[in-house]
């Protein structure tokens, strides 16, 4: 978990720098670490890190390519076979940036965060495992 938290903080700084420097003419790139699959990349950072059990959080998400669309964000506890008590919503902010609201992990343990991203006529599912103490 601590590794996750450190990663998120680092990514927050990186995303911030990217947002300041990016322009439409620059190639779409997300600083590592990011989730990648089938030509799609997702970088994300939780607002109000660290993520805390029983507290809502929002996420700033960056997609590559920049014209990719976020079509679903969800999280489940695979071992418990249940999801969140909330359905996340999201909105495009432009230039591949998205904001996700309504996330809440109501138990400690392993959560599987899922992003469904549509690009070039295909939808890819990218996941990341997060463990809350």
């Amino acid at each position, binding site marked *: 978990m601590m590794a996750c938290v450190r990663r998120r903080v680092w990514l927050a700084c990186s995303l911030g720098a990217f947002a300041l420097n990016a322009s439409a003419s620059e190639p779409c790139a997300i600083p590592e670490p990011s989730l990648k699959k089938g030509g799609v990349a997702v970088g994300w950072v939780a607002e109000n890190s660290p993520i805390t059990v029983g507290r809502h959080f929002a996420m700033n998400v960056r997609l590559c390519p920049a014209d990719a669309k976020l079509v679903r964000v969800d999280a489940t506890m695979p071992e418990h076979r249940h999801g969140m008590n909330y359905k996340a919503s999201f909105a495009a902010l432009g230039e591949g940036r998205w904001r996700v*609201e309504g996330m809440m992990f109501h138990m400690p343990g392993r959560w599987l965060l899922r992003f469904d991203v549509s690009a070039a006529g295909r939808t890819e599912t990218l996941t990341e495992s997060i463990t809350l103490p």
Partner: protein
Amino acid sequence: MIAASAFAQSIEFSPEERARILSHGPWPAVHELDSSNRVDGNPIAIELGRKLFSDHRLSASSKRSCASCHDPKRAFQDGLRSTRHQRNTPTLLDVGQQRWFGWDGATDSLWAASLAPLAAKSELAATPAHIAALLRRDRTLNVAYTALFGEATADAANETILVNIAKTLAAFQATLVSPRTPFDEFRDALAQNDSAAIAKYPSAAQRGLKTFVGEGKCFFCHSGPAFTNGEFADVGRPFFTKSGADPGRWGGLQQLFTSPYNRLGQYADGGAQSAVATKHVIQEPRNFGEFKVPSLRGLLGTAPYFHDGSARRIEDVVQHYSTVDESRLHADGEKIVRALRLTPAQARDLTAFLKSLSGASSRKSK
């Protein structure tokens, strides 16, 4: 491994257990103002709410007040097994930190939760006109109200006055915070590696705490400084009542979605930013028979226990979790609630820990 006590019987906590223990503090937690209530934290509103809380004139019969069931001398509950609603009256201590209100979470703000008993025919049975008339004729109440919301003119909507009164009641209730406990002293001592202070926490409570944050997995739902994740669970208690099945969270969500007083409605201050939970919460079949995960703070003063008040003592609660009927629960993955099958000594230790979550005044009276 970290020795919890250099003097008393040595209880060792793993780094994971230590982190979990520290996550149950510090206490008191910082109070976050409710942005759906523009007078939350306002001293005039708190004082007006405090007066109204015990004012029998709020009820249609002039015989009941909020304090009739939420008795300040009983940790703001009534000590009864169940009320006419066949649910246990919850304490109001620490209520200002909650996200959902009532055992079914039918309301999403403390002011909306305060409206429900005002209007309920089985409780105060007050109409908006009754509340507005009281406010207009009582000079003291009127002065305070005007300072907060502006003048309650003759053409002001009674409904709006009722909601504003509920917001002052909420402002008062948000100030009700449970006192520090022996566990809090232990938790802070652990954070500071203060061996002498750690040793003051009884060994039995330490052993019970180890079960709580370890094998018992109690912390899965009873998390954070308030010992609740603020959500809902089916822990294997019966939900059939004399009048039929109590739908619990399922019914609560149905009420929430249709209420004009939820955070998405016209009476809420603060806009969409104060309504994140309400906007995103979903209703699922598993919600049927789920009830709110209560805080464990102040347990000694808030008997009886569970949504229906069916457990008279903390020992009875521990016994339930030791022998819970797992076939009654519907988890198809890893079992979150399961029979702990505690030995008598382990049950006593877990009980000792739970009792240590109460402040000195509760402990003296037990």
